[in-house]
């Protein structure tokens, strides 16, 4: 879709730094601020006649659903427009407030027009839009035009795509339309999706243009150090805001709202990074690492207080289980460079081990371990399986490992299905699994019972959420400390060049085995909690690819797309994946199809993942930035 040649920065041509739309600066500022304000105001109007569009946008005077997002985007545009217009407010946006205003305005256009189109499509026809809807649409466009008239940042290029690029876009779009139409004729369920993809192509092209237009992220001089107390307060505020935004996203009741939310969020983040605020925020977190860790943990724990019901906490638990497992896989894939395609089996081993010693009636082992012992058992048994599997295969060429692990993932399910006393010894209860696993009881506190803290009812899943959060913290600690140690260096060395690593005295086999076993043990640990959360362990979920995470393919994707070798990458990847497959229900059965395409596109466009470790970053883009870069920001 893009080719890297257009991405390489061209020499900023000072003469070309005129805005895209020529107008006096005062007019531009005025239009930007006014358009933003008007957009915000239009959210209070009724946009449609029918209340059957989700969120009920028929009420004047009170915004609903997607209108809130338009309101937010409009306000942000106006606010940033003011900052851009008044030189004395530059402290508030040390980077490039003009660009930030532009991007907020684009976010506003995106969410507003998306809503209008969705209304028109869903209710069949433009007649469903009231004048209020048109006001919103026009207002957002006015803001956009205004921001396009703002002075441009140095380093940006107005590079209208070349003729060839437009043609490319055209062909790609037309091709997708044609393919989509063909699929439609054959009745394929993915037809609409492919045709919609045709709409994405020009939008993507526009995004590229926008990217050039805004130029690189501004570099800032380090800000003055603030007192730690101020920093802490700022961090608390930022984290609280992030939590609120996250909770809003998690709680979006219908797909359209989630999509609008994502659009506003993406463009707002882009705008914040252009405004320099993101950089400032990062600085604060980086200079108070210990505080940041503690506050981050507390913020995550506070999630259960901002949730609407225990259903959100259930979602949170599942996300955490998925993310923790992905982080375990990151040891294997990201650090040691070993491809494990059957990783979910280790989660299964942990879950089964915990279920067996849980005291469930259906367990074939009649023993009840306390949780700490069960967790250790799960991790240990899983680690042992890792060693058993790794010992014969880690000696041979790396590619074979992929197939052996894939095979292991598959036969794990077959084996546990057969260990039911009929076609194998009775261990796992066969296809019926181990069911009615009792809730955990830690220090006499039963996690199954709801209780009240600070006036809020903390339900069963909230309890497990906290437990899982602690386990997550442990896994993060293990990962980051192992990565930054003699062991972690040995893993990376093996990944980089195994022959050279052994010549440096590293026992390649032993360390690969260690990575494999540690990864397996971490997955096993997550599995122990999963068994209790789900009340049961059955063979079916432990597949290579399925619609619901965790499964091996999703785990791998969370690591790879999130960012190999980093702590935050797999967590971000896992969260994003889980929420997307939960929220985008309008994709119907096409989630896996999208997932497959996403994997391919990511490998093409950004193989280092969303959060790139500094190593990966350079590994994948060696051609792009050959000049030596002093690495100041640590990735891992």
């Amino acid at each position, binding site marked *: 879709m893009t080719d890297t040649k257009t991405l390489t920065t061209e020499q900023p041509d000072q003469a070309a730094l005129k805005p895209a739309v020529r107008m006096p600066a005062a007019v531009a500022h005025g239009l930007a601020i006014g358009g933003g304000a008007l957009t915000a105001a239009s959210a209070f109007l009724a946009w449609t006649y029918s209340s059957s569009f989700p969120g009920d946008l028929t009420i004047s005077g009170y915004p609903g659903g997607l209108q809130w997002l338009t309101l937010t985007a409009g306000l942000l545009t106006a606010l940033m427009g003011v900052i851009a217009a008044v030189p004395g407010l530059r402290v508030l946006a040390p980077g490039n407030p003009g660009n930030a205003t532009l991007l907020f305005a684009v976010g506003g256009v995106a969410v507003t027009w998306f809503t209008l189109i969705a209304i028109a*499509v869903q209710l069949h026809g433009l007649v469903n839009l009231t004048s209020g809807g048109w006001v919103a649409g026009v207002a957002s466009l006015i803001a956009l035009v205004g921001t396009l008239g703002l002075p441009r940042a140095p380093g940006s290029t107005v590079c209208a795509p070349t003729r060839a690029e437009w043609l490319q876009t055209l062909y790609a779009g037309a091709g997708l339309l044609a393919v989509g139409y063909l699929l439609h004729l054959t009745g394929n369920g993915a037809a609409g999706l492919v045709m*919609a993809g045709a709409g*994405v192509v020009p939008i993507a092209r526009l995004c590229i243009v926008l990217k050039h237009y805004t130029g690189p992220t501004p570099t800032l001089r380090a800000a003055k150090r603030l007192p730690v107390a101020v920093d802490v307060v700022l961090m608390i505020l930022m984290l609280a805001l992030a939590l609120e935004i996250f909770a809003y996203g998690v709680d979006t009741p219908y797909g*359209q709202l989630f999509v609008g939310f994502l659009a506003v969020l993406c463009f707002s983040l882009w705008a914040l990074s252009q405004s320099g605020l993101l950089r400032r925020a990062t600085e604060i977190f980086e200079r108070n690492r210990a505080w940041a860790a503690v506050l981050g943990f507390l913020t995550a724990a506070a999630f259960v207080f901002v949730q609407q019901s225990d259903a959100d906490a259930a979602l949170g638990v599942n996300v955490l289980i998925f993310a923790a497992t992905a982080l375990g896989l990151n040891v294997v894939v990201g650090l040691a460079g070993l491809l494990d395609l059957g990783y979910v089996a280790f989660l299964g081993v942990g879950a089964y081990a915990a279920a067996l010693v849980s005291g469930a009636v259906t367990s074939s082992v009649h023993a009840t371990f306390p949780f700490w012992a069960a967790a250790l058992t799960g991790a240990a048994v899983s680690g042992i399986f890792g060693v058993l599997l790794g010992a014969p295969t880690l000696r041979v060429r790396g590619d074979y490992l992929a197939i052996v692990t894939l095979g292991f993932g598959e036969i794990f399910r077959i084996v546990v299905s057969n260990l039911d006393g009929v076609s194998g010894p009775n261990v796992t209860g066969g296809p019926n699994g181990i069911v009615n696993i009792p809730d955990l009881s830690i220090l006499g506190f039963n996690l199954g019972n709801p209780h009240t803290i600070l006036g809020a009812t903390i339900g069963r899943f909230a309890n497990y959420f906290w437990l899982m959060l602690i386990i997550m913290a442990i896994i993060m600690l293990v990962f980051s400390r192992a990565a930054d140690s003699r062991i972690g260096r040995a893993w990376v060395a093996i990944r980089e060049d195994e022959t050279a690593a052994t010549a440096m005295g590293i026992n390649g086999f032993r360390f690969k085995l260690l990575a494999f076993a540690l990864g397996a043990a971490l997955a096993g640990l997550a599995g122990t909690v999963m068994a209790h959360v789900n009340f049961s362990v059955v*063979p079916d*979920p432990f597949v290579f690819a399925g619609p619901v995470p965790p499964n091996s393919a999703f785990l791998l994707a969370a690591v790879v797309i999130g960012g190999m070798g980093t702590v935050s990458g797999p967590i971000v990847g896992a969260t994003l994946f889980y929420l997307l497959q939960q929220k*985008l229900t309008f994709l119907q059965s096409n989630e896996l199809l999208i997932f497959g395409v996403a994997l391919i596109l990511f490998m093409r*466009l950004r193989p280092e993942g969303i959060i790139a470790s500094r190593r990966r970053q350079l590994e994948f883009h060696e051609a792009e930035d050959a000049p030596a870069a002093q690495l100041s920001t640590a990735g891992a």
Partner: protein
Amino acid sequence: MRNRSLLMLTAIAAAGTLTLSACGSRAASGASGSSSASSATTVTIGVDAPLTGPLSALGLGIRNSVDLAIKTANKTNEVPGITFKIEATDDKASPQQGQQNATTLVADSNVVGVVGPLNSGVAVSMQKIFDEANLVEVSPANTNPSLTQGPSWGTGTKVRQFKSYFRTATTDAIQGPFAAQFVYTTLAKKKVFLVDNKLTYGVGLVATFKDEFTKLGGTVAGQDHVTSGASDYSSTVTAIKASGADVVYFGGEYPDGAPLAKQLKAAGYNGPVVGGDGMKDDTFIKLAGTASEGDYATSVGAPVESLDSAKTYIANYKAGGYTDPYAAYGGYSYDSAWSIIEAVKAVAAANNGKLPANPRQAIETAMAQVSFSGVTGQVSFDQYGDATNKQLTVYGVKSGQWATIKTGTFSG
């Protein structure tokens, strides 16, 4: 440079989802339920089934049948003053997802009962969530006896597991032995070869069949377990032929049953293949072709053509304009939804025609008394929450059609 390529990718993703969801917002259109009666209370009946993925054919049949039941109830004003609404959730055949759906349904105070799930493996992760909220759950498809009667049901110690869990599906404990009696007595085959596909349904069926069949005096010539979806059953076929068995009992669904039947007949085996309701599907005959001739499958309830309610249901379903077939569990799903409606009716009737503020507990209690003539026959629940309807019918493949062979009530 690098960060920008990420930003771009997210922007593309955002743009993509924008375009997509604008085009594909069909999700909400599945919900129905007219709100004609202005003063009416609207309550929700939840559905949990795999609506997407490989099992979606069955899941959609469940959802549509519940939808049909709700529409019918609203149309006939079955419960005066109360309108029903459907809330369908997709569990994607995953226990995790099912559990999450359960918490979502529990959190919605309008939900008075839930139909589902399809998979026993999903059920076990949901039962307790519903139970703690006293929210009635009626499964149209779970056949594992231990879901209601506890893990030791086979040894006679039956203990009700969850007071909120009911099912209209018949359990393996009835269907397997019924098939065994049919094979041993009616078909007079005394030497059976057992095959299952190592999934919950098949394993349970084969186990109960085996117990009853040996109790009757038959012999088990051999037993094999096949990988679901593997389709190469040549070693199984060879073993069956070598065992000298005169009948094969297959525990599993038709996608595995059909190739087995086909490969058996192709290899020159002459005995019939007998299966459960998972095999009694027209696709079985389509897939296995002429090889299916003479095979048998048991199914719950009286023969379809003898039940007026079933005929009405099928006609209404067709008239309802659903794009997906009602599939194997459509009838049970309709009955499941209807049983909830009946319970709501009973509660409302006992409370001056209105539902109490939190009716869940009352509805759960009322479920035990529910009794009506449904699609699959008389529907009511016993002390474990199982369907009391123990009538089963044997169908056989005759000239490319399922034909009723025998119907009867299991007693044993």
